[in-house]
């Protein structure tokens, strides 16, 4: 999905969001599994009929579907996503605790990957015949093909437990004080230190898309007459490159936004391997405990984030690409 998303009329976003909310409500109610039935409905949790009925009443599961939906929507409007079945804490609180870590980790990784991929793509498009440059393509694409868990494992073994350069789990050293003189700086350094290995794993997975996109976008401009004009005007090579990049920018920005939009759960595997306390780990923990409200909360947050990002992209794309502003789209 590297290409810029099609421009949707505003009503479509509302429609998709409504569909997602309904999906989130109906999926657990229409599919066979249930938190009362235990894992896989095999009756791991044997409940006396009376207790089960009581639980149903507590969670409002015995009411008519329409009433449940109305209640769900009313809760949603109040920003209430229910409570965790395990810790009994509000789902919104759990998400609020985890979301910043994921946004930090994945946001940083996406930006680094965009810069690295963009730089490598520029090299590959601008100097396609240099021997070193020709090595970039197989290396980057090959690295990107490797599954994340293999890259993560390699990094842990080499840098985590091998040379012990970086911590292999967690987001920050426990009980590290943030107050006091120099405390905040030490804390920030510690956080970055912990983000190194999971971040590097994500960067390795993200670089190829940015590399291929920026290289292809730039390669298409290499012989373009407007670059000849730019050179003819006597612009130095850096300005010429900027002229070329101006054309590649919209598509690279679109990819950046898409990746950021999917970031909320895109790093679940990496967060699980590095025990990084983000949304992905929250999802993983919820799965292990069959904590349905949390799973649904994560699903809704992730979908809303992805959708909001697509909407934001439409606006940004129009700013970056004047051709889209003249009503040429669709």
């Amino acid at each position, binding site marked *: *999905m590297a290409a810029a998303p099609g421009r949707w009329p505003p009503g479509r976003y509302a429609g998709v969001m409504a569909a997602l909310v309904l999906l989130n409500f109906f999926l657990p109610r229409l599919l066979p599994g249930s938190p009362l039935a235990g894992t896989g409905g095999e009756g791991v949790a044997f409940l006396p009929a009376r207790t089960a009925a009581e639980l149903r009443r507590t969670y409002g599961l015995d009411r008519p579907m329409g009433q449940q939906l109305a209640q769900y929507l009313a809760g949603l409007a109040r920003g209430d996503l229910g409570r965790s079945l395990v810790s009994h804490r509000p789902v919104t609180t759990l998400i609020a605790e985890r979301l910043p870590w994921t946004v930090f980790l994945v946001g940083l990784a996406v930006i680094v990957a965009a810069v690295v991929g963009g730089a490598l793509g520029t090299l590959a498009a601008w100097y396609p015949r240099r021997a070193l440059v020709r090595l970039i393509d197989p290396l980057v694409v090959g690295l990107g093909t*490797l599954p994340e868990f293999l890259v993560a494992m390699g990094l842990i073994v080499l840098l985590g*437990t091998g040379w012990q350069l970086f911590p292999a789990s967690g987001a920050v050293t426990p009980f590290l004080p943030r107050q006091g003189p120099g405390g905040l700086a030490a804390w920030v350094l510690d956080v970055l230190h912990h983000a190194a290995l999971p971040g590097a794993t994500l960067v390795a997975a993200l670089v190829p898309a940015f590399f291929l996109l920026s290289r292809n976008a730039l390669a298409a401009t290499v012989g373009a007459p407007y670059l000849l004009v730019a050179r003819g005007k006597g612009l130095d090579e850096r300005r010429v490159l900027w002229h070329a990049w101006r054309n590649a920018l919209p598509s690279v920005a679109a990819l950046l936004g898409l990746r950021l939009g*999917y970031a909320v759960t895109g790093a679940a595997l990496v967060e699980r391997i590095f025990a990084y306390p983000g949304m992905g780990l929250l999802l993983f923990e919820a799965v292990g405990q069959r904590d349905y409200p949390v799973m649904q909360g994560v699903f809704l947050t992730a*979908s809303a984030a992805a959708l909001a990002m697509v909407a934001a992209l439409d606006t940004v794309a129009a700013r970056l690409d004047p051709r889209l502003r003249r009503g040429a789209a669709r």
Partner: protein
Amino acid sequence: MTRPTAVRHRFRPRAATWIAAGALLAAAGAAALAGVLAPYPPRAVVGTPAAPPSAAHRLGTNDLGQDLLSLWLHGARVSLAVGFTAAFLSTTASGLVGILTVVGGKYRAVLLAVTDVLLAIPHLPVMVLLVALLGPGLLHLVAALTLLGWPAYARVVRTLVATTMEQDYVEAARAVGAPGARIVRTCIVPVLLPVLWTKFLLTVRWAILMEATLALLGLGDPRQVSWGLILHTAFTYPLLFTGPAWSWWAAPPALALAGITLALSVIGRDFELWMNPAAQAAGRQEPGPRVVNS
């Protein structure tokens, strides 16, 4: 009446292609002959727990004392079967939906809306929700992978079908009174096949990785040994990285998965260039919309 004639170049395999095909065949062989090759039944507790490789257990044992080589061989079955089944089903769905969104009459709007919604949602959480609610099981996994695997390419197919329908030879077929089904069969499907084959190969790769990811996250079928399930138990083992245990426990399935995905990428790329030489002329480009990564 002009028929669409695909311009095909002779298929010139590179060395990498042979290696990739060899790797795939080896994996398929391991999967097919797992019952014969495996020294022990995969589930049997046959040695001391977490033992390093020895003559009796070439890849050592896991925390339960099960033979890791036997688990690995049997794991190939599930990983490959899930990947190929889900890819076949979702590719068929892409093709059908892509065609129907152009010529499907009153279903067009509905199908397009469904495609858009499925494209907009992030894959992993919805898959997690689906599998968690349906209960772990290979069929459920395949169903979830199929459901999320088709929308991206349905869009590609739709564009292709729409442009093909404008072609003169379709117009000619219509003029001589060919029924709709025949136009689709003789004029549209041949144009779609290269795209669908490429999607199939890419989706096998995606589905195998996704199965491993879900299994690693604890959503695999615990009754069926797969490479992802071995990784799950390995990463759940607290001492995995404190000693060399990772090298015979987690590394073999991870390397196998990496090898398979690399091989499928190489073959997919070759296949695309073979089917669509224009891609070669236009400079090497990223193959189609990436279904991978969500």
